[in-house]
């Protein structure tokens, strides 16, 4: 189903949803940086800004409580967090690279263990993607087989039109339901042409060749060459829409506290540090190798797709300028 919605009506839709108690998450400025955050009103929405972190946190928060404990004498009381209390959510203005990462996360969080925290938020969220009309030279969605109009992961997909408003395409029952229950805000397409789309200046990379090389080169001088500069922070993984590692810790006192889950990153020295003191990934190139292997081989081995959507965030924020697009392109050219 293809419909038209004006900017004003989109704002009305957002404000109506907020008034009805739905959590509406969209790009907005937050203490000086753009982030996907719950809106108080449609006026806060800033879709022209690429949020500094991806949309994954709508399902997989930076940090969340998963249980709490209290101890009195010999009695220990454990209280689970009830995922049923997670709010109905509409995620608006999601970049195609962020939306495309959602099915990638679905596969992991519903694989051998069903992560109810992720899955319940996922069930309760409708994703409204938005085509990109601007890009920079860190963007490389086109290199990994996606595009500025990729609708994968979106329930509804908006394409900005010449003269204002959006073409709104339905990609799921959730998306259809949102249109049906707000049908007065949508009308038939008026024949306006889409705005010129973003055109990332990166050629498509043959990911099957990347994977074939990685299959055979766990040990290779390449890793030392590219990762010697890596300083071992977690910035790339934390801004990535597809990275999904987390740590679980208990915080509090002996008497009472909470068990929390928070983002973790394979770039950290501590990530694979064993209780024995041994660390199988003792040097940074081994950790950086894992980043590339997981994205372009291990994940592909398990789920038949790539763990990278070319958003370019890691390229933009890497403290030492490590450029994953360059790395996979170089690998794709190897014999």
């Amino acid at each position, binding site marked *: 189903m293809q419909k038209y919605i004006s900017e004003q009506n989109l704002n009305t839709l957002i404000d109506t949803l907020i008034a009805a108690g739905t959590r509406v998450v969209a790009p907005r400025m937050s203490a000086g940086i753009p982030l996907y955050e719950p809106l108080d009103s449609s006026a806060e929405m800033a879709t022209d800004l690429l949020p500094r972190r991806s949309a994954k946190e709508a399902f997989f928060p930076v940090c969340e409580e998963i249980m709490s404990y209290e101890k009195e004498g010999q009695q220990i009381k454990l209280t689970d967090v009830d995922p049923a209390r997670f709010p109905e959510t509409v995620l608006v203005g999601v970049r195609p690279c962020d939306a495309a990462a959602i099915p990638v996360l679905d596969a992991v969080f519903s694989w051998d263990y069903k992560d109810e925290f992720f899955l319940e938020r996922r069930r309760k969220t409708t994703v409204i993607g938005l085509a990109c009309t601007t890009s920079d030279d860190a963007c490389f969605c086109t290199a990994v087989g996606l595009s500025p109009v990729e609708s994968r992961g979106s329930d509804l997909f908006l394409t900005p039109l010449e003269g204002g408003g959006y073409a709104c395409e339905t990609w799921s029952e959730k998306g259809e339901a949102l249109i049906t229950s707000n049908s007065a805000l949508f009308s038939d397409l008026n024949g306006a042409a889409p705005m010129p789309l973003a055109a990332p200046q990166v050629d498509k990379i043959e990911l099957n060749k990347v994977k074939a090389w990685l299959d055979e080169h766990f040990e290779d001088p390449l890793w030392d060459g590219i990762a010697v500069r890596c300083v071992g*922070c*977690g*910035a790339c993984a934390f801004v990535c829409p597809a990275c999904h590692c987390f740590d679980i810790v208990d915080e509090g006192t002996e008497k009472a506290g909470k068990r929390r889950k928070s983002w973790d990153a394979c770039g950290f020295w501590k990530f694979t540090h064993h209780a024995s003191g041994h660390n199988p990934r003792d040097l940074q190139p081994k950790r950086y190798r894992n980043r590339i292997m997981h994205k372009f081989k291990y994940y592909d081995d398990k789920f038949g797709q790539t763990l990278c959507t070319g958003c370019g965030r890691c390229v933009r924020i890497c403290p030492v300028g490590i450029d994953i697009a360059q790395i996979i392109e170089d690998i794709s050219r190897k014999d």
Partner: protein
Amino acid sequence: MSTQPIDTSIYTTITAAIRTEASRLFTAGEIVAIVGYAAARRKGAAQPIIITDAAAAETLVFTESCVNNLAVYLTKAKKEIPKNGKIGIIVKGCDLKALVGLMGESQLKREDLYLIGIPCAGVLASTAQPATELTTETIASKCCECDAHLPLGCDFVPSIAFPPGPQLESRYSAEIARLEALTPAERWAYWKEQFAKCIKCYACRQVCPFCFCEQCLCDRNKPQMVDTTPRPAGNTAWHIVRAMHLAGRCAGCAECERVCPMDIPLNLLNRKMAKELKELFDYEAGFEVNDTGPLTMFTEKDDQSFIK
């Protein structure tokens, strides 16, 4: 004040000079490696590189995108860099102050290093795209109060006549003055909002030349001194630990602030501590190796007014 361009034409000459010198050093067998900068894929971008032979000397560059403080690669925290001979390193004045600090803390020996100093007119702010022209707007804040355009005590510095540059307005002192004028409650509210942005990626720690602890206190869990989750308690504790541990040591390279993906103005904390150190101990980071840091030495002249 209107935006004015900053002349970076000297960087072309500097690039040529460091390539020639690097090539000479390898050919003469004086060094085993050089830590420098090379061009990266994105237009105008540069990234750190470690080269080990004369042939690679041609990859070295110096531009306004050469923002990193490469001193971090020489610390014991970076085990990946072979330290089996004399190492050359490209240093701006601010970077050199960090190396000098590391020498003062017995982390590096001067005789193990070959210092290639850069006469520096400034580098780009982290908010600027790499291909941006260097102007009074796009220049990094640290460069606006730089007193180290020409590093001293290096083994090699390209001889360059600095073109006259525009007057730069200090940003940190203005912001520190603004924060100092707030009430403690307002100031606390400001920092609470800033620390709330922290996602504990530890980029600030990993790029800091002075964060060379082989196991950071924050990575220890027996006992767990600092909460690891990105929440108010652990975030605040981490940033206070960081600021305090750097007081009297931080050389002002502002790498922590540059790399923060959440734009937390971390260097404000460092500048404020530096200001206190200057007032209390007449100490500031410089080019002279000093093995008695202001907070590691007691003298009878030390301020004791805090004892009440």
